[in-house]
């Protein structure tokens, strides 16, 4: 199974139990926000729906066994605001997906970022927002320090 635990990201996220403002769909009962896993596999299904979009990805483990991973994503109403369309990914695409694993360690992950076959990276809309606000916070601090 080409499943790796990305340690660096895990350490970063351990300080961020979850993103407060996007936890309105009961994230924490299912997923462990303090850990991150990365899977690499082939897309077999993509449903851009509400309340959560879903991917199914065929991941081959070290023993050569095929495991169907479920990738849970924000809903259509949120993803479309961040550039997602039904054609962003296509069945057969080779994808690298990082996200939070379940508490039970089942083959399921809450999407945080995805690398498409063309190398383009798509982030969870919440992370996009975080990055923008964090930049604003730094700028606010910089301007204060210059006064």
């Amino acid at each position: 199974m080409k499943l790796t635990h990305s340690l660096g990201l895990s350490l970063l996220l351990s300080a961020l139990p979850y993103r407060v403002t996007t936890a309105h769909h009961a994230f924490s009962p299912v997923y462990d926000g303090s850990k991150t896993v990365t899977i690499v596999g082939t897309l077999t299904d993509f449903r851009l729906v509400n309340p959560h979009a879903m991917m199914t990805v065929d991941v081959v483990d070290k023993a050569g066994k095929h495991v169907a991973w479920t990738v849970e994503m924000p809903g259509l109403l949120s993803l479309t605001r961040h550039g997602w369309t039904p054609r962003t990914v296509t069945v057969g695409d080779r994808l690298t997906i990082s996200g939070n694993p379940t508490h039970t360690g089942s083959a399921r992950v809450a999407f945080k970022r995805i690398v498409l076959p063309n190398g383009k990276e798509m982030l969870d809309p919440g992370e996009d927002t975080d990055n923008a606000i964090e930049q604003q916070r730094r700028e606010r601090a910089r301007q204060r320090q210059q006064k």
Partner: protein
Amino acid sequence: MPYVKQQIFIAAIGILMIGCGQTSEPAARAGSAPRPDFSGMWSDPPAAAVDDFCFMTCTDEGVSKLEALLDDPANDNRPYQELSREAVRYQRDEVIRPRLNPETSKAFPIDPADDPGFLRCEPWGFARQIFAPHQLDVRQSDDRIAMRYAEWDGRRTIYLDDRRAPGSQPATPMGFSVGRFEGDALVVETSAVTANLLGIFPAWFKHGDQLRAVERYTRTAGGNRLEMTVTIEDPVSLRQPLRFRKAWAWAPGEQIFPYTSCEPPTEFKKGGSRP
């Protein structure tokens, strides 16, 4: 001539009907300033700290706490999410909890694993739906306003024709709402709401069926922003009224998509993480 008499009669009836139409117009509107118009599609505001903090809902005190944290030079190296969580904890423990009745306070905040929306795909009730993020479609006519929320495809009607909730009005998840205009503001009073959850994780609790809410909507920023404040009273859960706020941005290019693919969880654990 009979034909001429007939035409005069028809003309007279027409004039009378026009006159009746004018006199039947609500007195409050005759000669008054035009009503503010809230029609159109609204959605999440652009990324900014306070709006993100209020993404679902917030209190004035919580926002002040966040601003103070952001303005404190001692926090210059603390990431926004850390500051946001500190403000959320303050809002939860210093603003909301002291206003809760003891029974409600004991169970506050509710475990997200107990959310009926999560467990059974049960649509949100009024006291959560009004804080729903993402798209909000507003259709305004003379006698009513229809609001449609993207989350759960929640819908409600706000009556503008001075009607009162009938005494026998059964409580419903979205309640019974009447509205009026005060200057540039739309003021909405809601009652007859079924006991349900109030607020959105991580600051939520159970409310009773005596809940009453007064929402106040205004357009700001040149009309491109929709601001809401809501004051909620509920003898079952609250010892003092609670006031929340939220904002949307003008989003004419957005749309509401079907909300039909909710699936109950296949695995979960109780006692999820807290801010």
